[in-house]
């Protein structure tokens, strides 16, 4: 059952909050209970910058199940303004204009739903940045 897990993790996904490891100083997103770099559990939640640069991407054409409507689905590796790298779905992408190096920004979109009668899940995706900060 997806509901309790999603509910517990909603704040980082709604507000784009990462975890800062107080032992090695690195930040990761989405926050996990242990630092993926050094294994420390001494973590603190920190808001992340909403802008970054698209470093790399891959496009999923054959999208399974309920997410089919989002096909073609681009997944991006984004370097945020503070240097932290995150992997996230891209949205509002015009296929001809998708290229490495474009500026992107975090937005909240539907990430999925727990079937037709279940809850709707929201979280962060990235889109090509609007003209201004």
């Amino acid at each position: 059952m997806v509901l309790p897990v999603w509910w517990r993790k909603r704040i980082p996904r709604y507000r784009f909050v990462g975890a800062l490891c107080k032992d090695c100083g690195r930040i990761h997103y989405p926050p996990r209970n242990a630092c993926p770099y050094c294994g420390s559990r001494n973590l603190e939640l920190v808001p992340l910058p909403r802008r970054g640069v698209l470093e790399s991407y891959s496009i999923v054409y054959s999208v399974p199940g309920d997410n089919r409507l989002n096909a073609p689905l681009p997944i991006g590796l984004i370097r945020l303004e503070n240097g932290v790298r995150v992997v996230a779905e891209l949205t509002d992408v015009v296929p001809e204009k998708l290229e490495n190096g474009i500026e992107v920004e975090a937005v909240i979109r539907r990430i999925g739903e727990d079937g037709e009668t279940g809850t709707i899940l929201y979280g962060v995706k990235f889109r090509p940045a609007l003209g201004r900060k």
Partner: protein
Amino acid sequence: MANSENKQVINAGIVGWGAYIPMYRLPTREIARVWGWPEHQYKALNVSHKSVDGPDEDSTTMGYEAAYNALLRSGIDPKMIGAVFFGSESKVYAVKPSATLIAEMIGATPDTMASDLEFACRAGSEGLKASLGLVSSGMVKYALAIGSDTSQAEPGDVLEFTASSGAAAFIVGPRSESAAIVEDTYTYVTDTPDFWRRAEKPYPRHGEGFTGEPAYFTHIIGAVKGLFEKTGLRPEDFDYAIFHQPNGKFPLKVAQRLGFPKEKVLPGLVTPYIGNTYNASALLGLARVLDQAKPGQRILLAPFGSGAGSDAYSIVVTDLVEERQDKAPKVDDYLARSYEIDYALYAKFRRIYVMLPRG
């Protein structure tokens, strides 16, 4: 005219405003192509394109982005927001508030009111008026009023030419911090069968013969004339006039009947480019006017909702407007961010086609 509304100073105004328009645009000529409508049947609507929400967007995500932009302009701590009102007729849940979702997303929870409001296209405006009352009375310091819709229209119905998607949001706060103060308001409602949607039906219906004169014109004119009578203001006192915009022709017609020249209406008229965003319709017009207004200018705002009712507001822009205009994307930034789609993509995004049953 009997008056149920007290004449008093409203100690509240608009501290921040924000807009959102999805990037996809469906040309009305494309809808006409699919359904075989000749040009003369729809050109008079004065709508060239309508905005369409993408497959991962809904009234919650759009309302959130408008609210986020309003917060950026206000510069306030979201924890200080004591009420969140979400006005929509395309809520994502039949039962489960959208206001709590957005309140949680922006960081206003848990010390806040949160309510979803419903009054066809006028619920967002009800939220704005309720916010003014709560702030003016001193019950809360700031309130957030959102109008957001991914409007439904039955494929092939005349509504399909205009029903579109967008959102607008306003942080209401103390008069001294406001970029625009609200001088006065006047509301006019009756029971009118111009437009409705029954429970569990996917598309609304409209009562032919009720939509124009008995609904839109009667209620907007009633609200604006009531405001004039209450305040002594006249059309020449206003620099801008913004009306609910179900199409591109009604707002110009109602302006003419009330004595406002076209030039005062055009800056707040967005429907010709994106269609009718329902609860965001007139409020997006207000956001666009605030994006460009100068201190001291006076704005008439008159949203309308079927069923039916209209609120008229007299709004005066303050010296604080200019420093806030560039703190978030403007309506024109969202208008410029457009990508034309055809009816097939629209049908996919809006889930209009019938999926085969799962095996």
